[in-house]
């Protein structure tokens, strides 16, 4: 038999309808997903959404409810196994370095517990420290208290990687680092994921971090998985208003579908007397209530009544023009208390300034096919 391609190989991690209650609180609610070998898989959501509990269930630090589904690692059911029987590696949010052991003893800890021969441990610890770019000669004998936050983070990573486990769990590992260091570590983690072929399961509340690093993202809310997909899928085709709002910025419009236009699009009578068209989707028809999201960068600002006829047009008044560097944000009021944010490329405000000023009457336009039709939450 020829070797199967990467996507056909059996999942490395598989959760089947896994649930976990803390008292009355449903922390994780019938969560299912499968992670492929070598994938960088992120669990993304706001605090309290169940992402960390899901990771802890995987690690064996929490046990699912009695009828709380099944967890498989490398095809083996391990739902109720103890953490030390799972052959996993994990990086904790607070690093959890042992404060009474030197860097080298911290990294060696897992190898000692796994009864790796003494002679082999030293060399493997050395290699792990080099892998996370900590010079062994300089750092091996230091105590955790003598390290900076970034160095501790690297030790925690080395301590996990040294085991050579096929799966690495990471619980918001970059949360405590400053922005520059975080960007640097993001890149390094991504490289390690590629070079080692280790499957990464990564918990984060930072949507930007999830988008930059992940092969796939599972977006969680209230203990449930709302959407699983590649960064492009969850950003460009969010399933619900929660996903659209949590990942990036989005402008939301609601209305009732009225009739199909000559171009095949559905015409929608929105609230506040707005009218717009949305592309055809299964489930759309006369009288259906519909909600759409439109990304700021897919919209444009025009003088009133100058929107091209193929685009949706909404009149408004400029409330604010914000300078963001790469882009400019134009915030326009389209009805009392209803703002729309439009991102416009910054072509140099000193040379080619935007023509819009606060108070100007404008029209906001976007192509119907750039509307993301959302499901109800």
């Amino acid at each position: 038999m020829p070797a199967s391609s990467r996507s056909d190989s059996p999942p490395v991690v598989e959760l089947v309808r896994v649930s976990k209650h803390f008292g009355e609180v449903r922390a994780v609610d019938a969560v299912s997903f499968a992670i492929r070998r070598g994938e960088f898989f992120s669990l993304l959501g706001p605090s309290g959404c169940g992402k960390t509990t899901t990771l802890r269930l995987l690690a064996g630090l929490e046990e699912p409810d009695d009828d709380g589904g099944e967890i498989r690692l490398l095809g083996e059911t391990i739902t109720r196994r103890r953490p030390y029987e799972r052959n996993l590696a994990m990086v904790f949010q607070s690093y959890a370095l042992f404060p009474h052991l030197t860097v080298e003893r911290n990294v060696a800890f897992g190898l000692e517990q796994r009864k790796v021969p003494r002679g082999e441990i030293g060399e493997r610890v050395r290699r792990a420290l080099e892998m996370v770019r900590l010079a062994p000669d300089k750092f091996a004998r230091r105590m955790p208290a003598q390290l900076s936050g970034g160095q501790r983070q690297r030790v925690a990573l080395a301590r996990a990687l040294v085991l050579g486990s096929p799966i690495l769990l990471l619980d918001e590992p970059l949360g405590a680092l400053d922005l520059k260091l975080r960007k640097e570590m993001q890149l390094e983690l991504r490289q390690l994921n590629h070079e080692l072929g280790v499957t990464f399961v990564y918990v984060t509340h930072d949507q930007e971090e999830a988008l930059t690093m992940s092969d796939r993202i599972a977006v969680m809310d209230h203990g449930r998985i709302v959407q699983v997909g590649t960064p492009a899928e969850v950003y460009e085709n969010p399933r619900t208003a929660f996903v659209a709002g949590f990942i990036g910025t989005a402008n939301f419009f609601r209305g009732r579908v009225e009739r199909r236009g000559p171009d095949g699009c559905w015409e929608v009578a929105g609230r506040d007397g707005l009218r717009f068209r949305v592309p055809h989707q299964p489930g759309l028809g006369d009288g259906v209530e519909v909600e759409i999201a439109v990304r700021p960068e897919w919209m444009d600002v025009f003088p009133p009544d100058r929107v091209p006829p193929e685009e949706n047009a909404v009149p408004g008044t400029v409330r604010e023009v914000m300078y963001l560097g790469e882009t400019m944000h134009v915030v326009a009021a389209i009805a009392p208390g209803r703002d729309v944010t439009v991102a416009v490329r910054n072509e140099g405000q000193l040379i080619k300034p935007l023509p819009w000023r606060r108070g100007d009457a404008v029209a906001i336009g976007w192509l119907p096919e750039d509307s993301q039709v959302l499901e109800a939450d």
Partner: protein
Amino acid sequence: MRRPRAWPLLAPGGLWLVVFFAVPIALMLGVSLMPRGVYGGVEPGLTLAHYRRFFDPLYLAVLRRTLLLAAGCTALCLALGYPVAYAIARSGRWKHLLLFLIVLPFWTSFLVRTYAMIFLLRDTGLVNQVLLGLGLVDAPLTLLYTPGAVVAGLVYGYLPFMVLPIYASLERLDRSLLEAAAVLGARPVARFLRITLPLSMPGVAAGCFLVFIPAVGAFLTPDLLGGAKQLMIGNLIQNQFTSARHWPFGSAASFIVMALVLAGLLVYLRLRDAPARGER
């Protein structure tokens, strides 16, 4: 921001300590170096005779017994106290009730509690009555006025001083360290030996000192439960100040005991700080 001055807060307590601790200690040091007066008290002069006198085999035997009893008491307190502290630290919502129970004995006088132990341990006491009643022994056991009775009394009195600091160090222990150890493959026993125990050592050391130091100086418990045969250094010193009316020797003995305890403390601090300085 300017920090408010701290010394006004220190003044009342500091003054108290100077007047009632530092001054008497200085006086005692002076007394220990002066010749004894004919009718008690001291005479002007300077002598080391009282310190030399302490190295008489008679007194050294008392010192030896004192150190042994205090060490035994400390070891037993540790053996009994560590599991209790561990259990309380992990007892969740019962924590406060259990801690309250630990300090509850302090609500009554130590003297009363020690007398109560006499009722328990004497020949016609509760323990012997139960043993006789069950037919386990034919004649009452001699429990009172034995080293065992002294150790039992000391342990009873000082156990909370062992439990509380160990509890405090276990309570501070970061749970995520144990979780990290578990994921790294450590079973419960390995987690205890390699993480919990070493990280609770400051509490163990504090507990040992808090028990050992007062146990070395104990005089009430050996007096009531040990009788004349189980004389400890505290009784010796007490006798010098009271019936023997030999203040200089009592002071000298006090300073020798104090020096021993301080030496022990310094050795411990040296050992403790050695690994932190990066030595191996």
